[in-house]
């Protein structure tokens, strides 16, 4: 596919002069060659794609994916994860350090960068704040940054010691590195496996209260404010977190945050059947929280939506809810879930293509003649079945696996590579 001519696609590039218009575009060897009005371009050598009903947007970027390498390759490898990412429309990923060993030194960071270097998906490792993600002492953050770490987080282990988080924020400020916080006070969450609420009471399950997240958000906002530095919250899930962050933004604290796509369409009601595919961390919350999260997306409090792609072998999921691992795969379902949440396409593009790159200070894909093509073509109305034929992940732990989803990615182009899922 040296030459691709996309005809009559609706452009979804926020800020572009042709945003919202139907256009033709010729891509030649990974570069935007010609842009024309709809149905005006022709090229006999090109693969021609009739893109009626399709949107052409900047390639999506995921701030929160777990790829299992090193150490957890039976869940996912970097290559299989990048495959799932491309199939979901992503051309860039920030890979979380939840690996074994954690991405906690130059060695692991360099390895990830090296394995992914020729991929369609631009993979950016996120370094662990503390060695082994233990939450005790700082890892060699600067050295990791030099090796390619795009930001720092402690993965899914929230840092319990305020002192360590304080030092991480202050130290990273020194070389402009972003700290991502996963907010959960372990002493309040108390190993509970689902949201505390009416449903947990009815199921006799211990509840993980919203309070556990909100206390940590409040703490880290205070720390960021004190040190006058930026902070990013990963996968917030509660109404209270949204309002804490909304107030902090008003006060001028340099805070950004994201929400996992599944938290916008699922509630703790789903846990009633004890299906471990609904066991995620943070836990699924209430309809009230879902509503607040959507409001947060619309008013700009929540900057980005992430997949929180968390692959697990069936052995870790086909067990009692209590001992099942947290998380679901999500790279291929972000777009369908956001459409299911009834978010407008311009907002979706903002939240999964533009904002994530802004948060990480990465260059924005450009759509003009001569620019490297970093694009996704998708049809928001087309349905597909998420099953063994369409799944690119090595794992299938998703409540959406085996279901029909609406919103299908047809073509992804980045780094002069093409992922095609054309009919």
């Amino acid at each position, binding site marked *: 596919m040296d030459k691709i001519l996309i005809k009559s696609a609706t452009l979804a590039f926020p800020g572009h002069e042709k945003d919202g218009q139907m256009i033709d575009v010729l891509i030649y060897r990974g570069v935007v060659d010609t842009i024309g009005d709809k149905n005006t371009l022709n090229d006999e050598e090109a693969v021609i794609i009739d893109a009626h009903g399709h949107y052409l947007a900047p390639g999506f970027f995921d701030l929160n994916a777990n790829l299992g390498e090193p150490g957890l390759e039976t869940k996912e490898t970097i290559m299989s994860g990048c495959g799932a990412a491309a199939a979901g429309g992503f051309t860039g990923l920030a890979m979380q350090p939840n690996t074994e060993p954690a991405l906690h030194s130059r060695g692991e960071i360099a390895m990830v960068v090296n394995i992914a270097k020729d991929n369609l998906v631009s993979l950016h490792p996120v370094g662990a704040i503390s060695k082994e993600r233990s939450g005790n002492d700082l890892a060699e953050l600067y050295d990791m940054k030099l090796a390619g770490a795009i930001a720092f987080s402690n993965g899914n282990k929230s840092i319990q010691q305020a002192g360590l988080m304080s030092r991480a924020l202050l130290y990273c400020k020194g070389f402009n590195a972003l700290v991502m916080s996963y907010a959960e006070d372990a002493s309040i969450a108390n190993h509970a496996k689902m949201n505390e609420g009416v449903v947990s009471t009815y*199921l*006799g*399950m211990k*509840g993980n209260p919203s309070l556990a997240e909100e206390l940590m958000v409040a703490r880290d906002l205070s720390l960021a404010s004190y040190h006058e530095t930026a902070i990013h919250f990963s996968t917030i899930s509660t109404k209270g977190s949204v309002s804490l962050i909304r107030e902090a933004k008003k006060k001028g604290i340099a805070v950004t945050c994201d929400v996992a796509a599944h938290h916008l369409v699922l509630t703790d009601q789903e846990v009633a059947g*004890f299906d471990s595919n609904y066991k995620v961390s943070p836990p699924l919350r209430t309809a009230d929280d879902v509503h607040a999260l959507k409001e947060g997306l619309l008013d700009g409090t929540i900057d980005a939506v992430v997949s929180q792609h968390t692959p697990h072998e069936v052995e870790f999921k086909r067990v*009692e809810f*209590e001992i099942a691992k947290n998380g679901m795969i999500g790279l291929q379902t972000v777009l369908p879930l956001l459409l299911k949440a009834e978010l407008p396409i311009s907002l979706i593009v903002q939240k999964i293509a533009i904002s994530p790159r802004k948060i990480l200070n990465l260059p924005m894909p450009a759509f003009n003649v001569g620019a490297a093509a970093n694009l996704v073509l998708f049809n928001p109305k087309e349905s597909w079945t998420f099953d063994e034929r369409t799944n690119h992940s090595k794992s299938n732990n998703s409540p959406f696996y085996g279901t029909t989803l609406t919103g299908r990615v047809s073509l992804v182009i980045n780094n002069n590579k093409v992922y095609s899922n054309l009919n």
Partner: protein
Amino acid sequence: MAETAQQLSTQHLLGIKDLTTEDIHLILETASTFKDVINRPIKKVPSLRDITIANVFFENSTRTRLSFELAEKRLSADVINFAASSSSVSKGETLIDTVNNILAMKVDMIVMRHPYPGAGVFLSKHVNAQIINAGDGAHEHPTQALLDAFSISEQYGDVAGKKVAIIGDILHSRVALSNILCLQKLGAEVLVCGPTTLIPKYIASLGVKIEHDLLKALRWCDVANMLRIQLERQDINYFPSLREYSMLYGLNKTILESLDKKITIMHPGPINRGVEITSDVADSKHSIILDQVQNGVAVRMAVLYLLAGKRI
């Protein structure tokens, strides 16, 4: 046992939440017949001949396991027992594998006690056998709730309209949840009473009253169901000491005699004498604790008998 066209609406007994009120009445009526049976000189009936039942207990139990085993034997079922600590199982063989191995030996029904909530529900979706939940974490203990309802109706003729206080560790109790659901389906009013740290924040959503003062709870109720403090399920300290718990929520003769009416005292056992209940109360005429134990066998016979009628 008179032939009846009535059947349960469910194939398994996973929790009270899956039973209709008609199901509960059917079980209680059937239990009443079986209670007569077990008080006859010949206590055994052939109802479950050729049915094999495995009692699979992943958590310690004396009374429930014995009660089920007796119920099974009095119905002439073949019985096997399997006990394992949950920790050894969670590290090795999965629950599905363990149970499928037992089922491969041609077992028809599984009675399971498990430390995790929903384990029975999970199992029923993944193996081909009838499952009877003998307690799953702090989720449900349906046969306990049924035998409690049976015992209350034995005392009062009916459960409807009665006021039942469930007192103690509500947070860690499967007995509490199953009792609340069962008693409400039968038309009773339920109140929960215990230390603030052992009452789930959203318990009112179940339609129960909440009281933290033992005396007020006792004054309100007809029946007080005293729960055991589940120290083995408390990973952190929810109250400073058993001594202090007992000062606040221990039921003793002085309190009982200060009431201007006679109330019935129940306890699912095992009793921590001197903690939630003093010996003079446990052994008093107010207490129906040993009746509960006897009724347990009859109720479990009823459940097994009715479920056997639902075999595919």
